[in-house]
């Protein structure tokens, strides 16, 4: 139920603050999505969509966070001996 899918805004049509709508691309599937909760979102931005509403713009810089973390871990590996998974 709380599933929210990332999609890319292709076009913003209605600019009324309440009924602000746009075409959002979900890997090739286009849907009309309400954008009134993301007034900062522009064409080309990725938004997180749930039940026909964009709930947030995706922070592209933060999206790399887990991979940076993995890289740091990899660097740690060089200096630290690792235990086997205990199963």
């Amino acid at each position, binding site marked *: *139920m*709380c*599933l*929210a*899918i*990332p999609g*890319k805004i292709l076009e913003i049509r209605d600019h009324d603050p*309440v*009924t602000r709508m746009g075409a959002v691309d*979900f*890997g090739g599937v286009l849907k009309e999505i*309400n954008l*009134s*909760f*993301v*007034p900062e979102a522009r064409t080309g931005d*990725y938004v*997180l969509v*749930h*039940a*026909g*509403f964009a*709930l*947030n713009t*995706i*922070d*592209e810089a*933060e*999206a790399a*966070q*887990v*991979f940076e*973390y*993995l890289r740091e*871990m*990899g660097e740690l590996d060089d200096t630290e001996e*690792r*235990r*086997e*998974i*205990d*199963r």
Partner: protein
Amino acid sequence: MKFIDEYRDAASARALAAEIARITTREWTIMEVCGGQTHAIVRFGIDELLPKKVTLVHGPGCPVCVTPAELIDKAIAIASEPDVIFCSFGDMIRVPGSKENLFSVKARGGDVRVVYSPLDALKIAVSNPLRQVVFFAVGFETTAPANAMAVYQARRANVKNFSLLVSHVLVPPAIEAILSAPHNRVQGFLAAGHVCTVMGYEEYRPLAKKYRVPIVVTGFEPLDILQGVHMCVAQLEEGRAEVENAYTRAVRREGNEKARELIADVFRVVRRKWRGIGEIPESGLALRGEYEAFDAERRFGVAGNTVEEPSECISGLILQGVKKPRECPAFGVRCTPDRPLGATMVSSEGACAAYYRYRRFSTEPQEK
């Protein structure tokens, strides 16, 4: 798809799992709150990647699962009225009420429609001015902005034949109910990422402090979940009990302020009954003030109806992380997705449905 595929990378997942194993010295029980996370964990076998000392238990974050039977019965009563078009998310249609489900109404010729968004239901109301259109507004905080906006737009456009049957529930009171239960064994939480996309995570700080539990805001893809588990285990091992955010690409501290403002404008916090768990104070939302006119329970006079829950289903224990689906004697035998005894077997996010779909034939002992 961007922002999905890269978070399913197997080598990165194994690296994270190895790191979790490296830092784990004691046995820990962690609950993922959201049913969407449960589904991903069972589907991708994330629990099987984790060290034996780390046990994931499944939480109550499945709105379809916790909607009480009496509310399904109210939906059935309203949907059976001759002039009604009853709209709902697909998951709710097969959930058993005390005697039947919404499908039975459709089978008898009732106009029950599955919609993607509450705005679709509002559109149906606008194009059918002589019919009453009711939307079954179930969900956690994630869905509240959509339902709030639908009713806000209906009021603004003076759409009089639209109403909501509201069954909205909130995550923090459910976490508190689990933590204060005498049989609680949960030591840390993965908080539901998209709930926090809307609400932020400040309201979890008093819970983390009062009950001394780490709460980590967590996403839904395998790497997100593993990162959430890692941060949670790290806190437990270090004796910390803080609120941390492992889902920063989608969650900001304050959530979505515009959405929160609208929720506060349209809804008020009320006591709600949770299926299998019971009543929890201040655990749900109901329409407030001038929006009460859009409350389907009032419009159709079903507000006072109550029923007992069916007996054999142990979904209450499943939803509180006390039991796992295969510990239920009815699992896969008397209770299947085709003939469910309880909602946890119906919803795509229900723990029982996830185990039925991905682990039915597994011979592995389920408890680590």
